[in-house]
């Protein structure tokens, strides 16, 4: 029997994997993917709560988040392309022109 707790745990795990990815990986593309993973973990949480409560509003919120994830990816990739054109790499450790 798959219960709400299972879905929530899965979402929490996905979220944690995303967090670890952002913190540990140095390639900006992988970091972007990890952020997408975190957003999708949140979507899963919304969906499982909505299903558990038999409500539609939670499912509608997911559409907002999907649209937002697309907008975020657009901006992120644009910044990445600008950096790649200038530097030839997307490694965030190579970016250390600002002090600190």
């Amino acid at each position, binding site marked *: 029997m798959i219960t709400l707790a299972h879905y929530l745990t899965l979402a929490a795990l996905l979220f944690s994997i995303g967090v670890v990815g952002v913190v540990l990986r140095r390639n900006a593309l992988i970091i972007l993917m990890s952020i997408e993973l975190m957003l999708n973990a*949140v979507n899963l949480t919304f969906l499982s709560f909505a299903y558990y409560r038999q409500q539609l509003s939670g499912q509608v919120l997911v559409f*907002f988040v999907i649209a*937002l994830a697309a907008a975020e990816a657009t901006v992120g990739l644009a910044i990445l392309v600008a*950096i790649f054109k200038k530097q030839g790499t997307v490694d965030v450790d190579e970016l250390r*022109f600002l002090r600190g």
Partner: protein
Amino acid sequence: MEKLFNTDWNLLLQLALPMVLLAGLGMSLLLCSAFFPRDRPKIFLGVLLLAILGILFYTWMQWRVVVPLSQEMLLFDRFSYSLDLIVLVTLLIVLLLCSKYVSAEGTRSSEVYALFLFAVVGMMLIHHGADLIVIFLGIEIMSLSSYILTGSRRGIIRSYEAAMKYFILGSFASCFLLYGIALAYGVTGSTSLASLQSLSLAADTSGNTVLLTMSVAFLLVGLGFKIAAVPFHLWAPDVYEGAPTPVTAFMAAGVKTAAFAALLRIVLALGHLPQIPWIPVLWILSALTMTIGNLVALRQTHIKRLLAYSSVAHAGYLLVGVTAALQNNTLSDATLGGVVFYLFAYSLMTLGAFGVVVAMGHRGEQVEELSDFSGLSQRHPFLAAALTVFLLSMAGIPATIGFAGKFYLFAGAVEAGFYGLTILAVLNSVISVYYYFAPIIKMYFQPPRGYELPPLSYPLLAAVFLCLFTVLYLGIFPSDLFLMARESVKELIF
């Protein structure tokens, strides 16, 4: 469907007109740049300034007549309109500041202006959001515009680096915020602030308390990033340094105001829950933020980094006010009014200080080292005097708006019984005097260095003068503004 037709659309349009107008202006600017190949920064600037003045006046009229109204997703009360006024003034000054920068850096002015407008629409959505998801979308609209603006210095890697860092950390924080919202949805079955406010977990056995505590923790982490509270402040100095200076001013003043608006609404909506240790958490957050912000600022030799750490410290002072406002669960209007007053004061003096930094820049080069300010009193007495006033105001010297702001803020904290926190805040202000005086000493007691300053453009001069006048005038006669701030928070709705 029934609900949709019950909405009074005319009233809604009337109340939300500032947002609608700003969004419309932004989109028509983008269309202009698509249909007319020639960029006309001066015409755009003129039209925008007039439009914003009109919107400012309209918002002020709304502030005067508004009857608090909450409509499913948006709410309209004096608190939200007063914050709208702050960000509109910020927008006005920032547009004046960036007039020189858009012509020098080869960026199309219409795009930059449109992004500023969209960011302000996002901020207004935050102020008027009656639902966590609206607040979140507002934060995202604001943040996405700021990411692009941060990276808008064409071909300059430092600007791109700042944009990248801001983007990664900003979206990371947004994910935390969103996860917090999802968990809150799990507890209440709704994301509206009203349902959070009427929530009670008196006899709870279903683990909802655990969920809600986690949700609040995630929300606080996400919002902590946005207001740059320690320990989530690490992006701020780098981003402030790399971004074009007018954009830095915009982020330091406007983005922080809006993020504080979100924090205040959420914290006040959930503040009544005894299961969550609000006071200790906010106490520690504010003590850490002001102390570390000030101590690290002592070592900075770069004016934008110095101002960045000082803005972290100011977030700490504001958190003192938030803590005090929460302690008086009856929503003491003097304490909350102090927070609103300080937000306005902080925005003005920060805009002014960054405005002087913009004015020092020359032919696309930005002048940012403290040593570049040597002897400014002889090279350009007006700029030197203006920067001195802004820095004194940030340090909280009497007869400036910064002093009045700190006075109201700390008075509220004392009233709520936070003696320890107030003493810490005052000690911090004393420490901050040391680093605020460093540029002043350089300007007045060291021989001039560097090139002759070119004559300042009129918009820049107007912006700096406007900030200078307001900082001094409201520093000497603060009571009217404080009364207005108190009025704003009297009838807070959720």
